[in-house]
């Protein structure tokens, strides 16, 4: 009997039994499902030194991977491009990825490759920081409330600074972490909501600076503070701990968190190649199971978050000081030095169905790729749907989640009853609503950005 047929048989039986058992949590998994060995037991996953790699670290440190019979090695990567390339050429089995990376790879923006995801790692977790000098120029234009700056801070105040710089002939530059990164789209969204053009990508301009009021460029997250300090950029959008680091080092001020730009926006995913997912279905489900448990553990209590901060501060993971990581991970966020405000949703790892790969999340990223010209021509709504279905794999997620429900590790109520869409979403900083089923209508609502058949 050949290996693939055996595993597919196991998987079929495993799935039916898991479904039969969903809800019946009185006894453990059926004997056969427990014996279905992962096709690949030695795995190497990549991550970038950011606090939102936490699900991977927790799954490793708490032994959740071991529980699934996997021997995982976690390896920090130099930057997002290296990470993606290494997943594509098989040096890594999977990785902590930006939500845009699997989508960008699939539509062929940058390196073309077939990458899929069955697990969304977290919601929110980023912020936009500007240098002290820019903050000093911005602050007079900001509305105050109770002696403190009123939040959320809109980009209108920054526009006045950028316009003043333009008169002096100075270019305003900001850093983000990758062309298809959530940070790039969030930063652009925020700037455009404040009336500035963050620049378009064209077939000849792959740096995305055509017609730009603010020049955006790529800098690896850990180098953001240093790059800003040296004056190469005047602000940046990045994940933690690099915004809080700027406060601690006294070199910059975080002005807005991405949760304020778009409430509960999806941030990172766990990506693998399509070929890997086909070849290792049992392994894939096992990995997702371990990661769901890690997400659940992270959101279960504040004590767990404190423990997670300790793990992340180890030098082989994020390695920054505990105090810096703890700031955002334990529900507060410091803007100006001393202006610490509660931010309970700065990092969401499990609540609000954070781990489920929603099609509507994928489509939002695709709309932003179209809005800024990374997708060069108009596409029908059905195309957006097809790409989302190709990349996001909720069925694998549900298989893993149902198995966990059957084992009594999570509650059935932790799983969404959904067709993959969150319905009409509100909570954007510019008040524009988003319906994932109508991407082209959504694009038409923006003043700045490409819509319909626009060309730059």
């Amino acid at each position, binding site marked *: 009997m050949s290996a693939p047929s055996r595993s597919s048989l196991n998987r079929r039986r495993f799935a039916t039994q898991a479904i039969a058992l969903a809800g019946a949590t009185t006894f453990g998994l059926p004997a056969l499902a427990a014996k279905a060995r992962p096709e690949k037991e030695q795995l190497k996953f990549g991550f970038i030194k950011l606090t939102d790699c936490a699900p991977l670290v927790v799954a490793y440190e708490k032994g959740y991977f071991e529980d699934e019979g996997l021997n995982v090695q976690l390896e920090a990567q130099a930057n997002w491009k290296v990470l993606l390339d290494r997943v594509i050429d098989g040096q890594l089995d999977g990785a902590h990825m930006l939500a845009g990376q699997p989508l960008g790879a699939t539509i062929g923006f940058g390196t073309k490759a077939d990458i899929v995801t069955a697990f969304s790692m977290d919601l929110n977790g980023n912020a936009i920081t500007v240098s002290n000098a820019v903050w000093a120029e911005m602050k007079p234009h900001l509305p105050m409330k109770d002696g403190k700056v009123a939040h959320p801070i809109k980009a209108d105040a920054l526009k006045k600074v950028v316009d003043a710089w333009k008169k002096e002939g100075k270019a305003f530059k900001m850093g983000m972490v990758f062309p298809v990164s959530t940070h790039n789209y969030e930063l652009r969204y925020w700037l455009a909501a404040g009336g500035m053009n963050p620049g378009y990508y064209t077939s000849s301009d792959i740096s995305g600076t055509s017609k730009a009021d603010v020049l955006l460029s790529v800098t690896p997250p850990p180098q953001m503070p240093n790059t800003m300090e040296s004056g190469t950029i005047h602000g940046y959008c990045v994940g933690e701990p690099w915004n809080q680091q700027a406060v601690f080092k006294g070199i910059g001020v975080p002005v807005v968190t991405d949760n304020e730009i778009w409430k509960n926006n999806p941030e990172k995913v766990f990506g693998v190649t399509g070929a890997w997912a086909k070849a290792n279905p049992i392994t894939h489900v096992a990995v997702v199971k371990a990661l769901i448990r890690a997400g659940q553990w992270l959101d279960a209590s504040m004590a767990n978050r404190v423990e997670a901060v300790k793990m992340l501060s180890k030098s082989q993971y994020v*390695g920054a000081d505990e105090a810096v990581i703890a700031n955002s991970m334990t529900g507060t966020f410091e803007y100006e030095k001393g202006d610490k405000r509660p931010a309970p949703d700065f990092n969401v790892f499990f609540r609000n169905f954070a781990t489920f790969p929603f099609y509507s999340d994928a489509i939002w990223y695709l709309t932003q790729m179209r809005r800024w010209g990374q997708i060069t021509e108009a596409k029908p709504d059905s195309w957006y749907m097809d790409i989302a279905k190709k990349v996001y794999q909720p069925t694998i997620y549900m298989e893993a989640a149902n198995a966990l429900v059957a084992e009594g590790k999570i509650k059935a109520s932790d799983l969404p009853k959904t067709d993959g869409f969150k319905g009409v979403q509100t909570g954007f900083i510019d008040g524009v609503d988003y319906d994932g089923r109508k991407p082209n209508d959504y694009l038409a609502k923006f003043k700045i950005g490409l819509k319909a058949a626009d060309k730059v």
Partner: protein
Amino acid sequence: MELVNKLFGSGAAALRDPRELGRAFVMSVGVPVIAFAIFLALWSVAASRIQTSLGAVPGPAQVAEQAVVLVKEHFSEREREAAFYKRQAERDKERIAEDPSYEPRNFQWTGKRTYLDQIVTSLYTVFVGFLLATVVAVPLGILAGTSKIVQAAINPMVQLFRPVSPLAWLPIVTLIVSAVYVTTDEPMFQKSFLISAITVTLCSLWTTLINTAIGVTSVDKDLVNVGKVLQLPLATRVRKIILPSALPFIFTGMRLSLGVGWMVLIAAEMLAQNPGLGKFVWDEFQNGSSDSLSRIMVAVFTIGLIGYALDRLMQVLQNLVVPR
């Protein structure tokens, strides 16, 4: 005594006079110790005044403290490793009790490489790279020294490639190794290790090559002529005449090569993110914690000490091998 002379050169023998001995001791031990103490004092004074974005520059005390922490981390990581193997054995036992047909897994521990592990990795890599370089450079150097044609043939290439920085070789080596070295799941060598080692080879073989060639050309002409008169075969000529005279040159070349190789390796590891001390430095720089600078300085001292130790090692070897 014989051996001591051999190892440390002659010079110790002349010291019979106690006053001379005392003076020699002051010169060889006292002065360096005092100078180093002054250096440490200056460092601690200067360090506290320079504020970087990672806090003040660490002084000697903080660096020493981090050195201890790094060693402690090594042992705590080893404990975690032991715990992992224990857990695995228990798991396997349970599973076999449930299901006798179950084949136990023997996973390798995948925890962090500790500082000491990184040192060992770097040393291993530099020696492999250096040996490769020696194996290539010495025969080639002998050929170039004995034959004018070969010398003329390889001279332009040596001149061209010798000044190339390791960082320029690295991408080329990386691409070629990735393309040529196709591995199964459990390769004999890690790609990253090969890339680092070959980069070291490419950068460190030139000095050995040039020195060997010079050594061979400077062999006493009378001896060479004797060899010709006796019509010795080439192998014998190399073994009996050329090598003994050229050996000091070859060793000098190798010593320089090893020094270059060690320097290159750290840079290569840093850039390619290959395991070793270079990666340790880069990771700490990326971490940006308040201890990072001290840890990087620990690494700097370690790298310096190891470089010095390697140099001494070559010197000792040279004294053993080269007849005085």
